[in-house]
């Protein structure tokens, strides 16, 4: 049983569900903890949705690659897309301390990801955005 999984999908929201089905099958085969599975799902959903909705300046089809590598203590998640340069570490923090009336309903996705993962590294390489995320296996 391989310790790696790589999936490439098109930039449509309909591609997300088959992708997460494959990723979950892989994680269940490797008996990852519920907590790790939750975090990987959240990171993939938030980032891939963001790429599909805001990542491109045209309407052409694009490929997004999601890869998982399992190490003894860590799950490494890599996401690659050819959208415009976008560093999710540089988006503003949402203001979560304002009263309900003034609270925006959106803008929480990348904030959640930054908070629940152990490490995020962004780089731009050969006209692609590459995001490397570490999530503890426990």
């Amino acid at each position, binding site marked *: 049983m391989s310790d790696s999984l790589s999936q490439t999908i098109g930039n449509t929201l309909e591609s*997300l569900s088959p992708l997460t089905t494959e990723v979950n099958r892989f994680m269940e085969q490797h008996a990852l903890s519920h907590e790790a599975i939750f975090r990987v*799902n959240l990171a993939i959903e938030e980032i891939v949705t963001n790429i599909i909705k805001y990542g491109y300046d045209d309407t052409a089809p694009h490929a997004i690659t999601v890869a998982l590598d399992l190490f003894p203590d860590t799950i490494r998640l890599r996401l690659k897309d050819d959208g415009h340069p976008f560093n999710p570490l540089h988006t503003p923090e949402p203001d979560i301390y304002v009263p309900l009336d003034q609270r925006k309903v959106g803008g929480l996705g990348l904030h959640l990801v930054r908070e*629940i993962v152990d490490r995020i590294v962004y780089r731009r390489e050969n006209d692609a955005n590459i995001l490397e995320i570490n999530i503890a296996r426990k």
Partner: protein
Amino acid sequence: MNTSESKQGNVTILQVQGKLDSASSPELDKRLTGLVGSGARQVVVNLDGLEYVSSAGLRVFLSAAKHLKQAQGKLALASPSAQVQQIFDIAGFASIMPIYKTLNEAVGACAM
């Protein structure tokens, strides 16, 4: 995701089970908007069967809490798992909508 609805006095309880992600959250949004539209003002969402929530689900809760507040009503969340509670904490939910450990506590607080 599955939802089911019940009433205890003037409190409407919406039970949510499964995964609340970008694919399923529009359905929950429709259910909650429908409840408010049909006159429900005290709404408790029971989350004890909720395995997963993403920002798409948080958006639905925020939107429902705003609509209910405008209508002089209230949204409360009940019995989230530890993982779901952690997501609520990161999103700063505790300061804008009540979250109770059990369904009974939530219903009791809303019925008052």
